[in-house]
Structure formats: structure tokens, C-alpha cells
């Protein structure tokens, strides 16, 4: 696990307010809080470098060791799928692999089929696209396996595009392919790509991502699947149902987990305390004010933060849900905020990177920098940024940037 702790991984929620879509977060860390444990967010950020991308996408980059992994999709129908491995220090391409989409590639024009953030167990990277192509590589670019889930389950798709991100827990890659038609979640053997289990899921479009949760520091993590019905915890190895929360949940924002508490994107935010008994989780508090809208919340220190699409950051007490402060940033937002130390970072659709010091009594905007977006193509930022060390990575349809001090 020490290795996994050292990964600079990030947060990853994306949401398009007009669509209600979102991209989920994925994490191999014990918590799934949208926080980089060893990261720092400089107040005075500047652009270190940028690299052009050959295709569209809003999936967040992930950083594993000194490598950055990023997906995109190119071609007139987004039919060509790319996974890049770049040197996180300078953006140099180390390797690239391409797939041909085997499923449907239609999406709303604002989004893209490269919407799901890859995940990693520290030795491999697992990438999923909205056409349900799922591939596993080692960090050197050797293919472990590739699946075409639409070939297996042909009616599983969403014409707006899907966006749930995979997570990897132990030897299982968990994917949620939930939509109006053939809706399911799948546990895939990380080594072979074969099914370990398959669960029928509610027939309803769902862009939220599963999160890992564990009963204690030494407990085996479980996968918490989110849908409009609520949360379902399953054993990642067998898919067996462990416990359920049935009071509904967002199909756009994803839940977060910190110190064993699930801050569910449900009725605003509902703090849940499951335990090892597999009984229904105990509700600690519920706040309809801390409403993450279509963006995923963030837990940083003793506070939980939500950001609505217009840009109002709302801080709540993590123990009670009571409101601590509100701060208006410049919106609109699709990507979710991320955090490190006591600082929160959010990037609006127009490319304005904003840094907030959350330890200030009312929160304080302490820095901002404007990314030079391509105005001709009217590109915008839909992704959630990633933090590694004291660097921030942000991407658009055309460019990946690294920001630093």
C-alpha cells in the first residue's frame, strides 16, 4: 500500500451542467477525497509546459510515479482511441497505444467519449472509453488485455456519452456501464480481463463513478456502486452484495470517502458510516445545502466542500455538515475542485485556474492564472485537474498543460 500511497492521483470529477454528465473520480488511495496527500498547490501558478493532443477528451490525467497517463479520442466519429504515457516532468511522449472503437462513439457535442479517467494499481493502467472499450497495459506499454464490452453486451450505451470511471481494488477492475438499456456493473480480473462477476443495475443513465471504501485500516476494501437508487457495496472479488443504502443518490456527482466515512452525493450530501457488519450504513448527517449539483464534493482537512456549477464554493463541517463559509469563484464549472494541504484548486470552463486557501476564516482566493484556450475552436475545460507534487495538470480537447511555481 505504501506504493499506492505514493501515487499522485487525483480527483476526477467532471460534470457538464447543461447535460448533467459527469466524470467520476478514481483512486487507489485508501480514501477517495479528491485530495493529493503529498501534493502542494502553489498560490502563484504559472505554465511550465504544454503538449498538443491529437484528439478530444475530458478524462483527467493520472500520474503514476514519474509517468503521466492520459486518454483521448480522434477521428470524425471519435472512433480512434488513444492512451498516452508521458514523462510527467516534461511532457515527452514515452509511448502511445491506439485502439479502434468497437462500441458506439456518439456523444453530446460538448463531451467526448474519452471521458472516463484511467486508474492504476501502481503496476498497470486501466483505461475505459465511453464506447465501452476497456484496456489494460503495464507501465511500459505492454498490452495485458483488451475488452470490447459492447461486443459482449450490445445494448449498453448512452447516446449522450457515458463517463463513469473505473476503479481497481486488489485484483479487480470495477466498471459501471449504467444506462437506460442494458445496464450493468462488472468486476474484471485485473490480470486476465475476464469477468469475475456481473451485476444487473438500474436501467437509468448514470455518470457517477464507484468509490472504494474499507471498514478499517487493515480491512479489505469494497466497491461502493452509486446509482439513482442509492449506494450498493459489493465485494470486489466476488461481486456479492454487502450492504445497501436506498435513499437515492446523484447520477452525476460521485461520492467521496474519508477516514471510513462516505460522503454520499445523496439528497445534497449525506454522511454515512458503514461498518464491517454489512448492516445498512448509519446516517451521521445530511445537508441539502452542501449540494454538489453535478460536480463532486471534496473533503479536505475537517471540511467538506461543494462547488455549484456557477462557482459558489461552500464549506461545511465534516462532522456535522453545518455550513462554515461560502466563497464565490468565477464560473462556470464542469470539472470538480481538488485539494492539497489546506488549499483547494478549481479550474472553470473558460480556463481560469483559481486557488483557494481554505484555512482562511471565510476562505480566500489567493491566486489565479488564465490558461490560453483556443478561442477559434471555442474549447473549454471540462476535466478535473490532477495534482502531483507541486504541479497541476489540466487538459482540454487540444492540449495538456502542466502548471507549477
Amino acid at each position: 500500500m505504501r506504493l499506492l500511497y505514493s501515487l499522485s492521483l487525483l480527483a476526477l470529477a467532471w460534470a457538464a451542467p447543461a447535460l448533467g454528465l459527469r466524470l467520476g473520480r478514481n483512486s487507489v488511495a485508501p480514501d477517495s477525497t479528491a485530495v493529493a496527500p503529498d501534493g502542494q498547490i502553489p498560490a502563484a501558478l504559472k505554465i511550465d509546459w504544454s503538449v498538443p493532443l491529437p484528439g478530444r477528451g475530458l478524462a483527467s490525467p493520472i500520474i503514476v510515479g514519474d509517468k503521466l497517463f492520459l486518454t483521448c479520442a480522434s477521428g470524425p466519429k471519435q472512433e480512434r482511441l488513444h492512451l498516452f504515457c508521458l514523462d510527467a516532468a516534461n511532457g515527452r511522449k514515452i509511448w502511445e497505444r491506439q485502439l479502434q472503437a468497437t462500441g458506439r462513439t456518439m456523444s453530446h457535442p460538448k463531451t467526448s467519449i474519452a471521458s472516463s479517467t484511467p486508474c492504476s494499481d501502481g503496476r498497470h493502467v486501466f483505461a475505459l472509453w465511453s464506447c465501452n472499450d476497456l484496456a489494460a497495459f503495464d507501465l511500459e506499454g505492454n498490452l495485458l488485455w483488451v475488452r470490447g464490452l459492447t461486443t459482449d453486451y450490445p445494448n449498453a450505451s448512452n447516446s449522450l456519452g457515458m463517463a463513469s470511471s473505473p476503479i481497481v481494488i486488489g485484483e479487480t477492475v470495477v466498471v459501471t456501464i449504467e444506462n437506460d438499456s442494458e445496464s450493468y456493473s462488472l468486476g474484471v480480473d485485473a490480470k486476465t480481463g475476464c469477468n469475475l462477476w456481473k451485476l444487473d443495475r438500474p436501467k437509468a443513465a448514470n455518470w457517477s463513478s464507484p468509490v472504494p471504501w474499507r471498514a478499517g485500516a487493515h480491512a479489505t476494501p469494497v466497491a461502493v456502486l452509486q446509482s439513482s437508487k442509492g449506494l450498493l457495496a459489493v465485494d470486489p472479488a466476488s461481486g456479492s452484495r454487502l450492504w445497501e443504502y436506498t435513499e437515492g443518490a446523484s447520477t452525476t456527482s460521485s461520492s467521496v470517502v474519508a477516514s471510513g466515512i462516505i460522503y454520499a452525493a445523496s439528497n445534497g450530501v449525506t454522511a454515512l458510516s458503514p461498518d464491517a457488519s454489512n448492516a445498512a450504513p448509519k446516517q451521521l448527517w445530511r445537508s441539502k445545502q452542501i449540494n454538489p449539483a453535478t460536480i463532486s464534493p471534496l473533503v479536505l482537512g475537517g471540511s467538506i466542500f461543494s462547488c455549484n456549477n456557477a462557482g459558489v464554493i461552500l464549506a461545511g463541517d465534516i462532522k456535522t455538515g453545518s455550513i462554515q463559509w461560502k466563497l464565490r469563484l468565477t464560473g462556470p464549472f464542469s470539472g470538480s475542485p481538488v485539494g492539497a494541504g489546506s488549499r483547494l484548486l478549481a479550474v472553470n470552463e473558460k480556463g481560469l485556474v483559481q486557488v483557494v486557501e481554505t484555512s482562511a476564516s471565510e476562505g480566500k482566493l489567493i491566486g489565479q492564472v488564465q490558461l490560453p484556450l483556443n478561442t477559434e475552436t471555442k474549447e473549454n475545460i471540462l476535466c478535473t485537474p490532477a495534482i502531483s507534487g507541486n504541479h497541476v495538470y489540466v487538459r482540454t480537447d487540444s492540449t495538456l498543460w502542466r502548471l507549477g511555481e
Partner: protein
Amino acid sequence: MKLSLFPLVCLCAVSAQGALDQSLQALANVGREGQGNEAASVAWKEVVQTGPASLPALLAVVGKGSPVADNWLRIAGDAIVQNARAQGQALPVAEVEAFLKDTAHPPPARRLAFDLLKEADPARADAVEPSLATDPVQELRRGAVQRLIDAARTKEADAAKTAYLAALDVVRDEDQTRAIVTELRKQSVPVDLPKHFGFLMQWQVIGPFDNSERKGFETVFPPEKEIRLDATYDGKSGPVKWQPFVSGDEYGKLDFNKPFGMLKEVTAYAVADFQSTEERDAEIRLGCKDGWKVWLNGQFLFGRDEYHRGQQMDQYKLKCHLRKGANTILVKCCQNEQKEQWTVEWEFQLRVCDGAGTAILAAATPAK
């Protein structure tokens, strides 16, 4: 000494080729739900380690298995080319180019050949691309067609018109077609888009049947049991019978709101007679944002119970086989209960074409 080693060298070469063939076959054999993945994972590394020499044999296997198998092979091809370029190894570009030019090879294999050629020798790929304007693979045409469009843009008046008309002859992608047609119409050149794409415009329609609680999608209403154009059935709110409907939309949209009114929780059917001049493989391509099912000659092709998530031309490609003579295409289209402004559409568009998107036009219906 040379003589004594010769059989051994030959044996090794044959053995290596045999091992490569076995590895490639393991990639081609992957099946549903990850069947064969473990063997393929080992084989993938063996193929990549073989290096550039394996590319012709690799291409020969693409298109012989499933699309997922093709991705195993595509990723291997990518890795081989990238490794070779990094190590300064020569790539068999002439063989790859020859493979691309042989239209007898399966479309996925030729697409991969072109992609590998672009990666290995961009200048060579650039030189080949203009020759692909009439290629039987739709995706391979695109670059060549774009060159024709770009060239037409540099011309004026009649020369431009001639150039755009030439591009229209070979274009298959909707966005490129739209660009060409826009320019031709500026010059008052008439373009028959339904004919260009092969949209079916003349239908018989019947409805409304029920779709309360979205149950109509799975309900077998009489048109799914029989096609009798003179029949009358019990519909959702009274007797219903077939009536002719001709689409006036140049992208072939059949809007059920026109004959039946703007209804909700309803199901309707449309049937068309398609006279094929020959027995042949074809594709029925559909765009629809409502629940739908399609049958050809009584055989169910596919259906989706998704509502109002989006519609575009060629959204669904249904492979099929046409009989010579009369073919019956039946479409079921279900409207749901949603009341938002963006859920008004109760429509579909359907065309018949080949794998390259070239319209297959129906022959005239024989006089009865």
C-alpha cells in the same frame, strides 16, 4: 560447413514462422467476455518481440476474428512500429503499402495498414492518400475527399462547381457532404440528398399503439405478427390502419408527430418495400432518439429502449442481407412520457447502403 547448416537454418526459419503464426492466431481467437485473453496476452508480447518482420503476417490476420481481436492486433502493430522507429529498424513499408492497395483484404486490415504506413512513413502515406477517394472502405476515403474539397475551395465559378461535383461523387461522410452541398447550392446546383445517401422516403405508417410505462417496446402489436396494409387494428385510442406517408425531409426523417399528432406514451410502426436489384450484403443505417426496433423480411435486426439521449445520421449500423426483389423493412418507434421541450421528437431516419456508406437505391416497385 555451409551445406551442413543449411537445413538447420531453414528449420529455424520455418519454426519461427510457425511460432509467429501461432501467436497471431491466439490474438485472432480471443472471444466474448475475455475468452482466450490469457493466451493472447503471452502471444501479444511474442508478436511484438518478433518486430517489423511480423507486420505482413499480422495484417493478414486482421479482420478474420472479432473487432476485439483486431484491437489486440492493432495495438501490437502500433508497438512494433514505435519500437522499430525508436531503434532505427527498417519497416516493411512497401509490403504494407501493397497490402493497403489490395482491396480484397478486409476493411479493418486495410485501415490498419494505412495507419501503420502513416506512422512508419508519413510521406509515403501522404502520396498514397489521393488514390483512396473511391475506396470501398468509408474511413479510407475521408482524407482523399478532404483534399478534393480543399482543392475545390481554391477554384472559382465553373471550375469550383466541377470540382465540388467531382467531390460529391465520392464523398460518403455526412459532414463532408454537407460542406460540398453548401457550396454547390450557393451556385444554384440542385443536389438530391435523399438519393445521395439512400434514405427511404416512402412509407406506410400505423399507430398509435400504447407505450404507457414504456411497456410498448416489448409488447408485440399486430404489425409485428403480420404486414397487411388493408387491416384495421385496435390502437391506443381507437381503431388504427395503415396510411401512406412520404418524408419531406432531405435527411429522410419520418416524423410520426405529423400523421398522428404530438402524442406521448405511444408506439407506431412504419413499413417500406425495398426492391433490390440483386441479392447482396448491405447495411441498414438508422438514426433515432426514441425506443426502436427494426426487422428485415420478418427477421429482427436490433432494437434499443433508450429515449431522448440524442440522434444522428448513421447512429446505428445494422448489417443485413437483401434478397433480390422485394424486401420488407419494418420499423417500430416508441415515444415515452417525458414532457420536456427536447422530448417532442418521435421520428427516425433510415437508409440502405453498403459498408462504405454508398447508397443502395431501390429499383422501381413492379406494377401490380
